[in-house]
C-alpha cells in the first residue's frame, strides 16, 4: 500500500503540472476546426433556406402548371353543359361563312331569335348569291371567250377543291390569290370566285352540320340524320354544279381558242344549258340551305329549350362555383428535429431522443370553389411538442466521516494573544483562535467519498397555436367522389405552452405562456390530399391526410429545431351556396 502511494505520488509530482508547448500549426488547425463547426451551423441555416427555396420553387411550379392546365382546359374542353354554346358557335360559323361571301363582315349573334333571323337572312342571301353568281359566271364566260383568255389556274383550282380540304379562311385566301394573279381580269375572277365560293358555302355548311351532329344530344337524332342526308345530297349537287361551271368555262375557253369565230347561236345554246344547270343548282342549293337552316334552327331550339344547367351547378353533387365550409378534426403525429445532446460537464442533460407525440387537430375552413379549383382559409387549433427525458446528475458527498464539516469551508488559526504560565514564566504560550473561511472559488477536491445520484425528470412539452391557413387546391371529380389536392401556408399565434426546457445556461426552466422559449407567431407549409364522398347534394364526408412543417423556427432564439405534423383529419363539407 505504501509502495502504491509512493508510485502515485512520484508520478503526480512529476507529471501533475506537466506543460508542453504545442506545435505551431495546432492553433491553425483549431481555428479552422472552429470555423468548420460554425460553418456547420451556417450550413444548417443554409439547409433551412434551401428547404425554404425548394418549397417556394415547388409552389411556383405547381402554380404555373395549374394555370396552364386551367387555361388549356377552359379553352379546349367541351362540356355537355355547353351545348348551347356549341350551337351558337356553329350557327355563328355558318353566318360568318355566308357573310364572308357577301361582304366579309362578321355578325355577332347571341340570342336564339337572332340566330333564326340571321339564318333566314342567310338563306335569302344565298339564294340571291346563287342567282347572281351564275349570271356572273355566264357573263364571265362570255367575256373570257371574247378576250380569249384561258384561266387554267382558276379552273384547276375549282376542280381540285374537295369538300373536306377547306376552311373559310383558306378559301378566301386562295381565291384572293387567284384573283391577284389576274389583275386584268379581276372583276371576272371575283365573279367566278363568288361562284366557286358559292359551291363552297355548301362545303362549309356540311362541316357545320357535321359539327352540329356531334354536338346535338341524343334527343334529336332524327333531325340530325335528315340534315346529314340532305347535306350529303347537297354536297354532291354543289360539286356537280361547280364542276359544270368549270367544265363549261373550260369548254368555252377551248372553243374560243380553237374557234375564234364560232357562231353566237352555239354559244347561246351552251349558255342556255349552263343557265338551266345553274337553275337546278340554285333550286337544290336553296332546298339544301333551307334544310340546313331548319336543322340548325331546330338544333338551336332544342338546345335552348332544354333546361340548361345553372352556372353554379354541374351534374351530380359536384360543386362548380360558390362557397362551402369544412369542419374537421383528427389526430396529428408530431416529431421534431431536436438532437439529444449532453453538454460536457453539465449536471442536467437530455437523456435520450425526444419521443414523438399525438396531438389533436381541430379546425374549420371556408372554401370558395371555381370549377375544380378552390381556395380556402379558416381557423385551426394545433399542438406541437414532445415528451422529453432529462437526467439531473447530482454530485453527492459522503460526509459520514466529516459530519461536522462543510466541504466548502476550512479553518485557519491565528494568534489572538499569549499566556504566561505563572509557574514557568519564561515560557510564553501563544493563543490561537480558529478562523472560519468559506471558499467557493477554489476547485475543491474533497477527500470524502464522492458519488452521483441520477434523477430522471420527465417533461411533456406542449405549445398550442391557433393557425390561419391560406391554401389553394384542385379537385378531381369522379361521380360521388372527389379527390382534393391542396397546398399553402398557415400563420400561427401561440395561445398556450407548458413543459420543461433547458435554457442557454443549461438550466431547466418551467415553461408557461409568459416564460416560454417558443415564439409568439410562426408560419407553416401545408400539403394535403383529401378524399370527399358526397352524402347528399350539400353534405360530403371528408378524410384528409395533411402534412405541415414549420417555415420559421418555433423557438424565439437559440435553436433551429422545427416540427413536422402528420395529421389525418376527418369531417364534413357543407355546400353553402
Amino acid at each position, binding site marked *: 500500500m505504501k509502495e502504491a502511494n509512493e508510485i502515485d505520488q512520484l508520478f503526480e509530482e512529476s507529471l501533475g503540472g*506537466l506543460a*508542453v508547448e504545442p506545435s505551431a500549426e*495546432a492553433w491553425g488547425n483549431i481555428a479552422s476546426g472552429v470555423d468548420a463547426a460554425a460553418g456547420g451551423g451556417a450550413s444548417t441555416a443554409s439547409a433551412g433556406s434551401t428547404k425554404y427555396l425548394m418549397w417556394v420553387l415547388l409552389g411556383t411550379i405547381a402554380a404555373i402548371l395549374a394555370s396552364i392546365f386551367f387555361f388549356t382546359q377552359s379553352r379546349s374542353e367541351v362540356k355537355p353543359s355547353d351545348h348551347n354554346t356549341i350551337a351558337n358557335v356553329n350557327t355563328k360559323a355558318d353566318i360568318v361563312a355566308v357573310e364572308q361571301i357577301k361582304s366579309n363582315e362578321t355578325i355577332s349573334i347571341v340570342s336564339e331569335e337572332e340566330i333564326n333571323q340571321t339564318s333566314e337572312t342567310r338563306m335569302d342571301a344565298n339564294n340571291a348569291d346563287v342567282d347572281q353568281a351564275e349570271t356572273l359566271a355566264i357573263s364571265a364566260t362570255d367575256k373570257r371567250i371574247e378576250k380569249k383568255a384561258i384561266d387554267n389556274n382558276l379552273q384547276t383550282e375549282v376542280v381540285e377543291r374537295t369538300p373536306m380540304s377547306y376552311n373559310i379562311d383558306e378559301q378566301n385566301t386562295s381565291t384572293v390569290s387567284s384573283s391577284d394573279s389576274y389583275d386584268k381580269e379581276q372583276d371576272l375572277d371575283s365573279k367566278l370566285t363568288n361562284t366557286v365560293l358559292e359551291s363552297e358555302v355548301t362545303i362549309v355548311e356540311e362541316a357545320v352540320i357535321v359539327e352540329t351532329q356531334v354536338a346535338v344530344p341524343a334527343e334529336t337524332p332524327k333531325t340530325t340524320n335528315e340534315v346529314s342526308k340532305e347535306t350529303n345530297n347537297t354536297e354532291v349537287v354543289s360539286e356537280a354544279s361547280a364542276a359544270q361551271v368549270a367544265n363549261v368555262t373550260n369548254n368555252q375557253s377551248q372553243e374560243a381558242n380553237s374557234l375564234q369565230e364560232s357562231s353566237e347561236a352555239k354559244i347561246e345554246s351552251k349558255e342556255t344549258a349552263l343557265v338551266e344547270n345553274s337553275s337546278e343548282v340554285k333550286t337544290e342549293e336553296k332546298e339544301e340551305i333551307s334544310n340546313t337552316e331548319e336543322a340548325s334552327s331546330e338544333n338551336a331550339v332544342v338546345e335552348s329549350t332544354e333546361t340548361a344547367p345553372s352556372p353554379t351547378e354541374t351534374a351530380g353533387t359536384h360543386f362548380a362555383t360558390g362557397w362551402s365550409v369544412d369542419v374537421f378534426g383528427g389526430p396529428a403525429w408530431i416529431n421534431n428535429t431536436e438532437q439529444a445532446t449532453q453538454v460536457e*460537464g453539465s449536471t442536467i442533460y437530455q437523456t435520450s431522443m425526444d419521443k414523438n407525440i399525438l396531438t389533436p387537430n381541430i379546425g374549420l375552413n371556408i372554401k370558395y370553389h371555381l370549377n375544380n379549383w378552390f381556395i380556402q382559409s379558416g381557423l385551426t387549433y394545433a399542438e406541437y411538442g414532445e415528451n422529453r427525458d432529462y437526467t439531473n446528475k447530482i454530485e453527492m458527498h459522503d460526509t459520514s466521516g466529516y459530519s461536522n464539516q462543510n466541504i466548502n469551508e476550512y479553518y485557519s488559526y491565528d494568534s489572538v494573544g499569549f499566556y504566561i504560565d505563572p509557574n514557568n514564566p519564561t515560557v510564553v504560550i501563544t493563543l490561537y483562535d480558529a478562523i472560519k473561511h468559506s471558499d467557493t472559488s477554489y476547485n475543491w477536491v474533497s477527500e470524502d467519498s464522492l458519488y452521483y445520484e441520477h434523477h430522471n425528470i420527465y417533461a411533456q412539452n406542449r405549445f398550442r397555436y391557433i393557425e390561419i391557413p391560406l391554401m389553394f387546391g384542385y379537385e378531381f371529380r369522379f361521380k360521388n367522389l372527389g379527390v382534393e389536392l391542396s397546398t399553402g401556408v398557415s400563420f400561427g399565434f401561440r395561445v398556450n405552452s407548458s413543459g420543461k426546457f433547458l435554457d442557454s445556461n443549461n438550466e431547466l426552466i418551467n415553461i408557461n405562456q409568459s416564460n416560454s422559449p417558443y415564439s409568439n407567431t410562426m408560419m407553416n407549409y401545408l400539403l394535403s390530399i383529401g378524399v370527399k364522398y358526397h352524402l347528399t347534394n350539400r353534405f360530403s364526408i371528408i378524410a384528409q391526410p395533411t402534412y405541415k412543417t414549420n417555415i420559421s423556427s418555433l423557438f424565439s432564439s437559440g435553436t433551429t429545431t422545427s416540427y413536422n405534423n402528420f395529421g389525418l383529419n376527418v369531417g364534413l363539407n357543407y355546400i353553402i351556396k
Partner: protein
Amino acid sequence: MSIELKILEGCKNGERAAQERLYRHFAPTMLGICLRYTKSRDEAEDVMQEGFIKVFTNIDRFRKEGSFEGWIKRIMVNTALNHYHKAQKLNSHRNIDDIREVDIIEDDKPMPKTRFSQKEMLDAIQVLPEGYSTIFNLYVFEKYKHKEIAEMLNISVNTSKSQLSKSRIYLKKVLNRMEEERKGNNRS
C-alpha cells in the same frame, strides 16, 4: 488562475483574437494532460485540438460557478476518453483485461531510487497498456473514485481497482528497468 472576463466574453462572441489568447494561455497545460492519456505527441495534439474546438463551440454553456480551467480540463479528459473508446472499438480484440499477466507479475524489487526526468516519467505512462494508463490517470491525476471510473469506462469497480493495482506494478517494473538501463549505461 483566472481568465479575464473580457477574454471569456470575447470567446463567447466568437472573437478570434480572444480565442487565441485563451488557447495560448491554456494550451501547454492541456497538452500535458492529453500526453498522459495518449501514446504519442501527435495523438495528444489531435486530442487537444478536438478538445479546444469543443471548448470554443460550447463556451457559452460555461456557467461561471466553478473554475474555468477545471471546465476545460474536464473537456480535455472527456475528449481523451472518447478517443480511448473509439480506439477500443477499432481494436475490439484488445481491452483492459486482455493484457498479458506476465507483464504485470509483481516482482520483489524495491521502488527505484533514481530521480527520473519528466520525459522519462511520461514515457513510462505512455508505454502502459491504454486501459491501464487511463485508469491510472483518472485515479492519480484527476482524483476520480473507482466508482466514477467504473461508470466512465463502463467497467466494474473491482476491475477498476485491480487494473489500477496492475498499472502500478507495471509502472514500477518500467521504472526499475529504466533505472537498470541507466546504471548499465553509466558502467559502460
